[in-house]
């Protein structure tokens, strides 16, 4: 039982594995294998067989597939040996000689013979001349079918130049600014306040402030929109938690995004208010913004991811979500409460800032008129 070469051992082993495999296991190659089975059955029928054992047919078709793979592999190897990447007829003939060396062919002992006159080729010529032509039983589409992927619009394609030098033009374009930016005149005023009173690095806070204000704006405006109030705010108060019918809501303005309204639980809000009044926690502005950072990031990404690992809630018009921002030390109330309880609760926006009362009041004064007008203004400039 000596084997003729490494290839045979591999084929034998793989045949063994194939025989032991269950029929129910579907492999990725099933389509090609089933086509090979049909072709092999046709060849055997032409040879004289009238019936097949199923396992015998499976084995022979597997051997045929491996034969094709082996010719391809050796052809590629001979091409690479010659320093080429594309194979030609001589590579195939050398591969066939390798495979045929087990059975033997005429002229195999002549090592330096020309490949064109190889015994394998002559045998194949003889076979083609003698055997009758048996076309395949079915018509096949080209496979595997490749899915065409649409390339994204690049900067080059749209004709514009990328906004910064470090961005290469072959990258896809950025999304429209209206989809993610919601600048309001509040931002400049707030930044002004921080600069004047607090000093220090404003740049880092500026971006967070803007997004923070966006967050508040969206949630407040969603609450102060007259139609939404009618549907949602009053009814929620009257009937408790009512599921809002998504088909009856008014359409969003251009660029608006639906954000679920957040109602902190009443019990928690009272406790927090008492705590914030009593405790003196030194708060730095940056740390306050940092605690809001997850909320800001969530607004940017469109979902909320709670700190204690609760599941994400997508911000697309769901009913009220109750959640708690921050840890136990400092509970920050989001400005959504302004929807229900007016603007007085603005004082708790920035946490327990006893030393910041002056600035807070100034912020309130500036924000009051803008919030009163927010109900009439649209969200987008």
């Amino acid at each position, binding site marked *: 039982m000596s*084997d*003729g*070469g490494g290839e*045979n*051992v591999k*084929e034998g082993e793989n*045949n*063994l594995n194939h*025989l032991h495999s269950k029929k129910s296991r579907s492999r990725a190659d099933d389509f*090609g294998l089933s*086509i090979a089975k049909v*072709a*092999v059955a*046709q*060849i*055997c029928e032409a*040879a*004289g*067989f*009238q*019936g*097949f054992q199923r*396992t*015998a047919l499976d*084995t*022979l078709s597997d*051997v*045929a597939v491996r*034969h*094709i*793979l*082996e*010719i*391809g*592999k050796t*052809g*590629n190897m001979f*091409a690479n040996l010659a320093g080429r990447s594309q*194979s030609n*007829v001589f590579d195939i003939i050398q591969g*066939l000689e390798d*495979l045929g060396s*087990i*059975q033997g062919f005429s002229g195999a002992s002549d090592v*330096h*013979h*020309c490949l*064109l*006159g190889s015994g394998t080729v002559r045998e*194949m*010529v003889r*076979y*083609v001349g003698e*055997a009758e*032509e048996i*076309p*395949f039983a079915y018509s*096949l589409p*080209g*496979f595997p079918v490749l899915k065409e992927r649409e390339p994204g619009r690049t900067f080059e394609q749209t004709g514009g130049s990328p906004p910064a030098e470090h961005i290469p033009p072959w990258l896809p374009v950025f999304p429209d600014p209206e989809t993610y930016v919601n600048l309001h005149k509040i931002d400049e005023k707030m930044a002004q306040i921080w600069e004047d009173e607090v000093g220090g690095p404003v740049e880092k806070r500026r971006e967070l402030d803007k997004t923070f204000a966006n967050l508040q704006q969206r949630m407040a405006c969603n609450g102060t929109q007259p139609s939404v109030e009618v549907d949602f705010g009053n009814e929620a108060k009257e009937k408790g938690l009512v599921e809002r019918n998504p088909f009856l809501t008014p359409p969003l303005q251009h660029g608006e995004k639906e954000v679920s309204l957040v109602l902190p639980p009443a019990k928690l809000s009272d406790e927090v208010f008492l705590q914030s009044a009593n405790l003196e926690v030194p708060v730095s502005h940056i740390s306050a913004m940092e605690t809001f950072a997850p909320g800001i990031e969530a607004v940017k990404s469109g979902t909320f991811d709670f700190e204690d690992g609760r599941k994400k809630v997508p911000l697309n018009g769901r009913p009220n979500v109750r959640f708690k921002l921050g840890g136990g030390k400092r509970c920050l109330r989001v400005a959504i409460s302004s929807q229900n309880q007016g603007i007085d609760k603005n004082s708790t926006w920035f946490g327990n800032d006893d030393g910041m009362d002056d600035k807070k009041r100034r912020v309130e004064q500036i924000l009051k008129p803008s919030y009163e007008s927010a109900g009439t203004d649209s969200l987008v400039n």
Partner: protein
Amino acid sequence: MNATSQQQGQGQQQHPNIEGRHDDDAALSEFLASLMDYTPTIPDELVEHYLAKSGFQCPDVRLVRLVAVATQKFIADVATDALQQCKARQSAVIKDKREKQQKDKRLILTMEDLSRALHEHGVNVKHQEYFADSPSAGLDPVSRDE
């Protein structure tokens, strides 16, 4: 090519070698051209798929046909050998039992014949004889008791 490099000292034989090469060349190109008329049983799409899978790159359709014909020839050889085995077994059976002549006319490809035929071509296939549901199945009752 290789032939000429090995026969440097024999200048007289170079001419027929060159001519022989030309003949071989012509024969091969004729053969490849004839392949386009002959449709192998193994479809081109299947062969192209598996050649691409193995890393074989060639845009020429004639080479794909060449590989298809080579594989078809291989399978046909194996099938012929298996058929001979099957017929030999049937004739042996008929020899023993002359009453039932040609009881089984159908020629069926079995694993046993196939494994013998493939062994001639270098493929070792081992097939399970039977599957038992317990280690003591089929044993004599005496040994089973022990």
